[in-house]
């Protein structure tokens, strides 16, 4: 039983990371119909910004700030202006393909210009376990859970309690009506891209100490974020959070109790079942269809 609880807690930590990545993914879909197949690489990259800053002998906290700033500028602002804006009016598919090419571009660039080897990355928490009531929980996981949950809480407050957040929601739900009511829709869409840039940097900071910094880190993570977003409900931030946490726990339990070989199959089966029987996700609403 203690083992089971430890697995669930570790799963929640992984799931909180999935949720962070899935939230950004959902935000981009909501505001600009962008299916970002490079989302996993977006998480892989900021760690290298931070490593590069540390190679210039900056302290860790300064490197973190630089990483988040660069990520917001490049993966948020530049991504929107250079790739998404020119392609948006041509439908979902060409843009999705372009993000696939972008993922290759980011991966190969890191491999070529930084390193093909895994680089160690400093951790926020000491490498020790905390023992509560016979359950061993690593400080690493506690730090991940704490930071990720704090970020999600802050985002929820921003979205639901501030004028800015309400305007962003309005821009996502009905751009035309929002525009008529005087919401600067274009700027709101840009803000969601910036938020995504910051969220992936945060996820990068939390996940890289566990897996080391490597150019292939995004591959499984991107897939996990898709699954989390869809399982929870593609058009809701709360859905992405629930989907992420659920997926993390299921993933960890499957690895322990089913088989390591078919570990990857469980999230996929979950995805297929959810799409077939609850296509809008656990918490999602139906999207309107046009005739």
């Amino acid at each position, binding site marked *: 039983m203690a083992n089971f609880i430890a697995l669930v807690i570790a799963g929640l930590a992984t799931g909180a990371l999935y949720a962070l990545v899935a939230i950004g993914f959902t935000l981009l879909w909501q505001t600009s119909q962008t299916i970002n197949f490079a989302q996993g690489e977006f998480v892989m990259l900021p760690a290298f910004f931070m490593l590069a800053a540390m190679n210039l002998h900056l302290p860790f906290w300064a490197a973190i700030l630089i990483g988040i700033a660069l990520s917001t500028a490049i993966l948020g602002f530049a991504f929107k202006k250079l*790739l998404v804006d020119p392609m948006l009016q041509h439908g979902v598919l*060409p843009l999705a*393909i*372009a993000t696939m090419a972008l993922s290759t571009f980011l991966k*190969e660039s890191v491999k070529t210009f930084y390193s093909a080897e895994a680089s160690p990355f400093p951790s926020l928490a000491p490498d020790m376990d905390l023992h509560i009531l016979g359950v061993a929980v690593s400080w690493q996981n506690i730090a991940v859970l704490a930071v990720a949950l704090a970020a999600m809480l802050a985002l929820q407050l921003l979205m639901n309690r501030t004028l800015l957040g309400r305007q962003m929601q309005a821009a996502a739900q009905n751009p035309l009506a929002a525009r008529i009511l005087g919401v600067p829709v274009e700027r709101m869409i840009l803000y969601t891209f910036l938020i995504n840039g910051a969220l992936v940097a945060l996820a990068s900071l939390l996940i890289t100490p566990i897996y080391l910094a490597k150019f292939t880190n995004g591959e499984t993570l991107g897939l996990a974020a898709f699954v989390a977003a869809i399982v929870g409900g593609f058009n809701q931030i709360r859905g992405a959070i629930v989907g992420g946490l659920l997926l993390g726990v299921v993933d960890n339990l499957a690895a322990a109790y089913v088989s390591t070989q078919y570990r990857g199959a469980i999230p*996929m089966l979950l995805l297929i079942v959810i*799409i077939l029987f609850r296509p809008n996700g656990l918490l999602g609403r139906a999207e309107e269809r046009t005739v």
Partner: protein
Amino acid sequence: MNAKARNLLVPSALAIVALFLIFAPLTFHRYGLYISSQWAVMTIAAIGLNLTLGYAGQVSLAQGAFVGIGAYSAAILTTHGWPLIAAIALALVLCFAIGWLLGYPALRVQHHYLAFVTLAFSTLAFLVFRNESWLTGGTEGIDSVPRPSLFGFSLAPHLRYYYFCLFVLALVTLATLGLVRSPWGRAFIALRENPIRAMSLGVDTRRYILMAFAIGSALGGLSGALYAPLVGLVEPPAFALTLSFDLLMMVIVGGAGYFIGPFVGAMIAVLLPDWLRFLDRYYLILYALLVMALLIYSPTGLVGVADRFFIRRRTKAASTARAALSASMESEGA
């Protein structure tokens, strides 16, 4: 250009391309022949995906998995002494049936949801290829897949195998051309343009969606069955999600919904990285940049660029003709 010359333009261009495909490889070396054969094989898979996506409008990220199923069918059967024809038949039937089943989710969900169901299917297929060692050889895969012989005539030399692939590609091209020009092809397009309107006009959308998936997947299987003897080695990473992404990229970059789109797209995806190899370790970076630049410039792909160019010229020619006509009428009236 008058109408007569234009009517000659398309057949003569096709004849030049066909002559090039037949005679140019005679001068190619081993590697050139390998790349050319790979182009032919990948084009077959891309033609299948173009039917599903470009004509019928159903997004699929599973075509790479079907190429894998076809490749494993061929590898398993031929290494047990069966002829390749039997393997091709098995690949076609198996992929048709699985493709049909995979079409069922498409009856419930569309667009990005469908993309994710097929993506999940791809991942599951990869896990089966990797884990079921008793059948697929696991991570080691199956090596020394033999090249077939046709009526006692060995296709082992690279040039002969290239011609075999080209021949199959020609058959597939003719069959697909017949299909898209038939009422079926029109039903596929109706499905893509507006499924609800198609249904109200009496198109049995259920059957055509399943059919689009099944036929497209069967062509994926055929491509795989040719791929196995070409490479000689069948291993799981070759059929990971990346292949499905690549095939989708071929169709979109070539021009989805255009008949020659997959031919052009497969050429870009197979040959361009190879031409860029002189850039050494930068070649994939530049390749990805070129794909993005092309899609920004023309989201309808390369054939879309040409199409726009011709449409513009035709409108221009038509408007000058109209201007000339009205001018002559005015001068007559005066």
